[in-house]
């Protein structure tokens, strides 16, 4: 039964048909599929499949990618309220785009994916100064700061990740708070994240979930 539901959900996602995707999910619940299975066996694998098809063939399509993450976040939000026991949050991340960068679509896609992977994300929006990243991470007791940068100068620049790293060092927070970065410049130069002082980078929302969970584990160790 689950197989045919997964197929129907994936077809709706392929057509970016939000209404139909939600119908499929609601019908599944009525048939007795648990909210947990909806998230972990239907929604998350659908994002994984999307990410794979984007990285493996040439059919990258922003509309599909965005809508998949958006629908995933919406379904997850609804399912969380119905989980039998309160879902265990993996941890918390402060997320925003680097100073000087106003591109936030990528960040929104990643946030949708993180939600489905039980990582709590606090969104600071765009053009976020380094001080604000650090202050909010401390105030909200987050283990990770996520910085998105879509342009070479905001990825490499002095006001972005480099400045956050400097502040963490100055305030003695480097063991408590890790930095993860994402965005096109990091994909084209896989060593760039080290150069700007990040602890890790992630290519997409699914990889981000894994990488961030790993960083949270390091902080808590």
């Amino acid at each position, binding site marked *: 039964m689950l197989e045919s539901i997964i197929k129907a959900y994936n077809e709706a996602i392929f057509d*970016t048909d939000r209404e139909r995707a939600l119908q499929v999910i609601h019908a599944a619940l009525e048939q007795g599929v648990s909210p947990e299975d909806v998230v972990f066996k239907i929604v998350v694998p659908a994002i994984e499949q999307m990410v794979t098809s984007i990285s493996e063939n040439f059919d990258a399509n922003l509309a599909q990618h965005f809508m998949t993450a958006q629908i995933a976040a919406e379904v997850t939000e609804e399912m969380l309220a119905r989980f039998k026991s309160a879902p265990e949050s993996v941890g918390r991340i402060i997320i925003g785009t680097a100073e000087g960068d106003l591109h936030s679509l990528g960040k929104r896609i990643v946030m949708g994916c993180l939600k489905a992977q039980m990582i709590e994300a606090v969104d600071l929006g765009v053009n976020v100064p380094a001080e604000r990243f650090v202050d909010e991470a401390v105030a909200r007791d987050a283990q990770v700061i996520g910085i998105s940068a879509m342009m070479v100068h905001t990825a490499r620049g002095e006001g972005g990740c480099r400045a956050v790293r400097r502040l963490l060092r100055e305030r003695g927070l480097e063991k408590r708070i890790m930095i993860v970065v994402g965005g096109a410049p990091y994909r084209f130069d896989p060593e760039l994240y080290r150069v700007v002082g990040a602890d890790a980078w992630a290519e997409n929302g699914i990889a981000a979930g894994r990488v961030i969970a790993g960083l949270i584990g390091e902080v808590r160790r």
Partner: protein
Amino acid sequence: MPYLRVRTEAGDRRIPFTPGGTLRELLAGAGFPIRSGCAGVGACGLCLVRIEAGEVPPPTENELRMLRPEQMRRGERLACQVVPARGLTLAIDPAPLCPAWLSLPADAPGPPLPAPAERRAVAGGTSLGVAVDLGTTHIRLTLWDLAQGKRLSGRTGANPQALFGSDVMTRLTAACASREDAAQLARLARDAIGAALSDIAAREGCRLAEIGRVAIVGNSAMLALLAQRNYDLLLKPAYWTRAIDCRPEGTASWCSAWGIDPRAAVELLQPLAGFVGSDLLAGVLATRLTGEPGGALLIDFGTNSEIALWDGATLWVTSAAGGPAFEGCGISCGMPAEPGAIYRIEAQRPAPGFRCEVIGGGRAQGICGSGLVDIIALLRSAGVLNGAGSFSAEVDSRGVAIQEQGGLLLLNGRDIDGFQRAKAAIGAGTRCLMQLSGLHLGQLKRVCVCGAFGRFLHVPNAQSIGLLPEVPAEGVELCGNSALAGCELLLFSRDISGTLAALAGRARTINLAQAPGFEELFVESLYLRPLRMDP
């Protein structure tokens, strides 16, 4: 020392090299600058070379991502990713980026010049003037007899700054990182203007020394880089809606380099704000956008598209950077609207298949922006593409064949995505300005489509996929290069600064990235369907 053997149409050349640099760097150093969209980080896939003999390192991750298997089999590689250790034989096609200046055909008759009595006075012996549209991708200029009000000649060619990257951000970043690069960027643009003028002088025999006036319009980044002034501010969002001073320190040395009258007035027409250049203001003048009751929209299609909406009282302006798809750049089978480009496509009857029209006739070498609009609209109405931009199941991963005979041309999923992004930026920008002005679709009387892309546009197709608002056909005007036409008006104007100041006084500049709801509008506008104009 190993050497590169470079095969070109003009013959072979041997370039000795010391291993360590990328092919792109080695070739650029030897006078073979190669197209690039990303300043050599492996992100754009434009710097293609074909390795014909010799040993090369295996493809990098970026190459595996950018190149299709059949390209690999042909020996194609990205010049910025290959670091050769030994000698190689390679071919570069398309030909390396050396500005070849083509005659610029006169556009459809533009607005009339000011009456002779209204024109700026001409000093004796310097009765020639030049209008320049300094674009990110192309430079276009025209030479005028100022006394007679007569166009003498025109040229168009590639902006050689493309060496640093196809978009303005890469060039600004390069200029900010190194004073030398900033100087080189300015020199490249200056020299290109000089080369175009020399080409006119050599082929048409005019005397450059008689040029007493040069007017230049462009987007803010082009003007700032040319003037070597304030380009750093353009990387800061706070300045995107503020005036940026792009006046050069002096232009006497430019005049002597160009061989024009040493006292010639070289005027860089100042941009309105960080990302709204004087090219847009010139376009507004040329189309007389503000000359009648409200409801007039201007879209200047380019790599950095600009949009203006006149509502009768306020000129709403913005820029919408959606990538270079309209210029045929970044599209696997794309090319600029030049001879050899497919510019119109119709469904063949009986189906299936397409009937293509090629600029200049002859064999098609690629597809330009207007052809792309047609093919996407046709595939969409045939059900081969869905609204989200995905191919139906019967299309394999290579894509759809636009042409099979005389050179296979394929359109793939990534091409569609690139086009959707460019289209979405325009659609969202248009809708944003409409919302801010409070106008609704029914009040939109004119839609002026500007830029080389618009010349061949099939309006119903463009409307069916949401590139243009659905106003009645007679309301859509294909205006061609209105930035150059406006620059020509200003060349004759007695009061350039007054004219521009009057426009600037009514303008409100919007930064789309900060406009509420822009992202939702952008995502909605990715879809291939008519533009939804009313909220």
